[in-house]
């Protein structure tokens, strides 16, 4: 039932409305305003008229129809669905943090600015970069900022012939889409049989027209690109720059710094590696880090720490924090949000980083990798087809359901849907597209051995069912609020908003 169907004309929540007699100046003035009638609307928007309890009950019950990290194992490859510590939420929502206006004087925000500055320093350290901007509001916006900086760099050198960005075929779809948004054409290069970039193809694709290469390492195939030094040399020798897609940073956090691999610019998905919530599709945060030569182009604002203009109680330890603006960074690619990005999310990432400390960060990569390799080994032993059995898994790996499909007709999608009935959120399906019938599995470091063992057992059960009772698997899920949905009807009829019955 929709909230609109719980609506009753005339029902309202007096506790949530201002006492207009106080603010308008007289009990009888009602809602009259000083605005000419021609600018006012005559109808009322279609919003529910429901009691507070109806609303609370409705959305509480809706929430219970979701799988979430807090309720289920969620091994979604490339998404890093690890535990989101509750302390991060509680501490980012302290009243003073929530109440501060973005344009209030910086003197009234020294606490929040200190957190942001510290987070910049932490991210510089883990990425091996010379500077960081926290501005981008999602990974895709971080990519945009990164490629826009590459373009600004070439443009500033009057190197206008560079019109292409090279992207491996295993890359996230955001990579080519971003390159186009930045005015580049995309040149795609293939992957070799080991899951690495095809170096010959890379050499052939690189030239004076190359602005840069976008690379995820470990790749979306779940393996570390060993020849990164060669790749780096090919691109840099041609005058291009290297972009690091930080989607898989969790795999190497505290182990390898992208700056040490020769990357010039990186975005970091804080909602993955730094455990801020995914929220059913955002808000995320896609901080960018850059090497020395890209520092002038960082997106605004960036937080700076300076000696205080005059000593004041608000300045901690003799420091004063302020936002750098266009006046400080005249070559900046500019602003990407009206204010300063998703600050509430950045505070959560900061709390998480401080709780981990340096030692905790090393452990992230270690245990994410241990869990992935253990799960891969157990599934391999159980007879599942691992895409790259000769390789170490990074924090994720691929299982192909093609043999099962050939034998029983049960697809990776069917397996995924049946996993829901067993109480597991499925892995990422059909990405990367290079491996047929693939499941991309990322367990993360926060899951226990028992959970991983349970997941292996569930997949084995489903495989048995695929042979013994294929219709059971094809018809899955059976225990969710709905069964499989008609996507064709959805796209054809496009019911995108409820309308009252006439």
């Amino acid at each position, binding site marked *: 039932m929709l909230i*609109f169907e719980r609506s009753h004309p005339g029902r309202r929540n007096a506790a949530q*409305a*201002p006492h207009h007699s*106080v603010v308008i*100046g007289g009990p009888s003035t009602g*809602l009259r*305003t000083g605005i000419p009638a021609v600018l006012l*609307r005559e109808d009322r928007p279609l*919003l*529910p008229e429901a009691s*507070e309890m109806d609303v609370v009950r409705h*959305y*509480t019950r809706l*929430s219970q129809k979701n799988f*979430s990290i807090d309720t289920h194992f969620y091994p979604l490859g490339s*998404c890093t669905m690890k535990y989101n*510590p509750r*302390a991060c939420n509680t*501490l980012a929502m302290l009243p*003073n943090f*929530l*109440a*501060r206006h*973005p344009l209030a*004087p910086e003197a009234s925000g020294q606490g929040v600015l200190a957190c942001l500055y510290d987070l910049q320093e932490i991210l510089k350290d883990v990425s091996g970069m010379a500077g960081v901007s926290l501005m981008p*509001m999602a990974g895709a*916006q971080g990519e*945009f900022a990164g490629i*826009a900086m590459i373009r600004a760099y070439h443009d500033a050198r009057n190197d206008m012939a560079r019109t292409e960005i090279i992207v491996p075929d295993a890359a996230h*779809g955001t990579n080519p*889409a971003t*390159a186009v*948004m930045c005015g580049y054409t995309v040149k795609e290069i293939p992957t070799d049989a080991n899951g690495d970039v095809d170096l010959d193809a890379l050499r052939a694709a690189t030239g004076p027209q190359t602005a840069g290469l976008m690379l995820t390492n470990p790749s979306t195939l779940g393996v570390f690109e060993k020849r990164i*030094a060669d790749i780096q040399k090919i691109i840099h020798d041609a005058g291009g720059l290297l972009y690091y897609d930080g989607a898989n940073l969790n795999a190497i956090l505290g182990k390898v710094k992208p700056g040490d691999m020769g990357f010039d610019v990186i975005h970091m998905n804080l909602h993955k590696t730094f455990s801020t*919530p*995914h929220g*059913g*599709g*955002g808000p*995320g945060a896609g901080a960018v880090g850059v090497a020395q030569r890209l520092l002038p182009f960082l997106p605004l604002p960036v937080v700076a720490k300076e000696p205080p203009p005059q000593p004041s109680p608000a300045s901690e330890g003799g420091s004063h924090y302020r936002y750098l603006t266009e006046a400080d960074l005249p070559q900046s690619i500019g602003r*990407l*949000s*009206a204010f300063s990005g998703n600050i*509430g999310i950045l505070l959560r990432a900061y709390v998480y980083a401080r709780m981990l400390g340096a030692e*905790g960060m090393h452990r992230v990569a270690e245990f994410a*990798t241990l869990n992935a390799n*253990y799960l891969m080994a*157990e599934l391999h032993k159980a007879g599942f087809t691992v895409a790259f059995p000769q390789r170490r898994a990074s924090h994720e790996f691929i299982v192909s359901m093609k043999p099962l499909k050939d034998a029983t007709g049960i697809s990776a999608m069917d397996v995924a849907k049946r996993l*829901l009935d067993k109480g597991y959120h499925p892995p990422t399906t059909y990405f990367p597209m290079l491996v047929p019938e693939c499941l991309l599995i990322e367990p993360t470091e*926060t*899951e*226990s*051995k028992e959970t991983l063992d349970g997941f292996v057992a569930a997949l084995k059960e489903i495989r048995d069912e695929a042979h013994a009772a294929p219709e059971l698997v094809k018809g899955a899920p059976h225990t969710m609020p*709905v069964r499989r*949905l008609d*996507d064709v*009807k959805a*796209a054809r009829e496009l019911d*995108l*908003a409820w309308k009252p019955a006439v």
Partner: protein
Amino acid sequence: MPFIPHTETDISQMLASIGAKNIDALFDEIPAALRSGKLTAIGDGLNEMQVTRLMHERAAQDSQPLNFIGAGAYEHHIPAAVLEIATRGEYYTAYTPYQAEASQGTLQTLYEYQTMIASLTGMDVSNASLYDGASALAEAILMAVRAHKTSRRVLLPASVSPLYRSVARSIVKLQDIELVEIPFDIATGTTDLDALQQHAGSDIAALVIPQPNFFGALEDVDALTAWAYAQGALAIGLVNPLTLALLKAPGQWAEKGADIAVGDGQPLGAPLSSGGPYFGFMCCKQALVRQMPGRIICRTVDLDGKPGFTLTLQAREQHIRRAKATSNICSNQGLMVTAATIHMALLGSDGLRRAAAASHANTQALAVQASGVPGVKRLFGAPHFHEVVLHLPGSSARVLESMAGQGISGGYDLQPHYPQLGNAILVCATETKTVEDIQRYVAALRHALH
């Protein structure tokens, strides 16, 4: 080891299964030269008690002045239930609803959101959100250029927030789109129709129409929209959703309404939070839906004919279309949209109208009383919504600093962005302000000018 559950026994059993002698061996494919990885700027980990203390100390450094700044972010009452429910783990820790059967909660919530925001804006359809109002404006400009096909020029009035214009420039300039600034009439504070008319007959992809505009002034939206039609340009409405409880909606402007409506959803349940997270909204006419970026939720049926919700039109998106996608956006601001949906459901159209009307009336009262201070006068004669521009007899920066010293955020200094206005500040009093608050404001202003 925070948030890692492994016991020593677990670790040795797992390594034995893998056939590795220790955890370090799992990294043996990474060239040794790269594995420095020493972290120097990060101290020891803090436990929850220590980090709680640290964050309380930091929060205490942020003062809470009585706020009269708007300028794109507005202080409104948010019912307690909004954030309580939105931060339930089932919403807070869910992923994008790709697995529809296990995400009906998020999907239905987003469908209800699309219904509410489309109705508020008077438009046919909505997406499931963009990042914020400024980046939504940039996406609307890109969308209009895609839809228009021949022109890459978009008219952007100077009465649009300078911060929004700056973001739009950063995002669209890389695709060779020309943004042409249209000045405002110094008497009214609204778009200068004569200056606009000079562009008549040229090939224009879109006109951006802010309502209320950055100065809080109300534009002649019918005339501007009709002008856009006459040029064969798309009309992009840039609106504050709360004001649409009272104001004519973009879908009702002129004969056929605006083509695209965008704005920031912050006034619908998002705390100020130093600037984010908020969310951008985007609505459009049905005919443009395939040009719209971002995720879209659709109602359909399942195998048994039971109603359910799913993502649709994914062929526009980057994970399918790659280089040919409408945008690179994937994650948006889902949780803030969940909060906004609950917020709108709790207030209803009556509650939103009251909050909007009270904000208007409070700002009106503030403008009248502040104008009683010697030398202070209101700029711009056009009707306003819940922000006004005050002209001061002394340095605006110094006045605001003095008011800050008295515990009041007295407004947004327009001087850096609009030097032609002199010592002007933009002031906002939402429904959260009492009669006493407004008196305090006026007294502080009087004192600052003394």
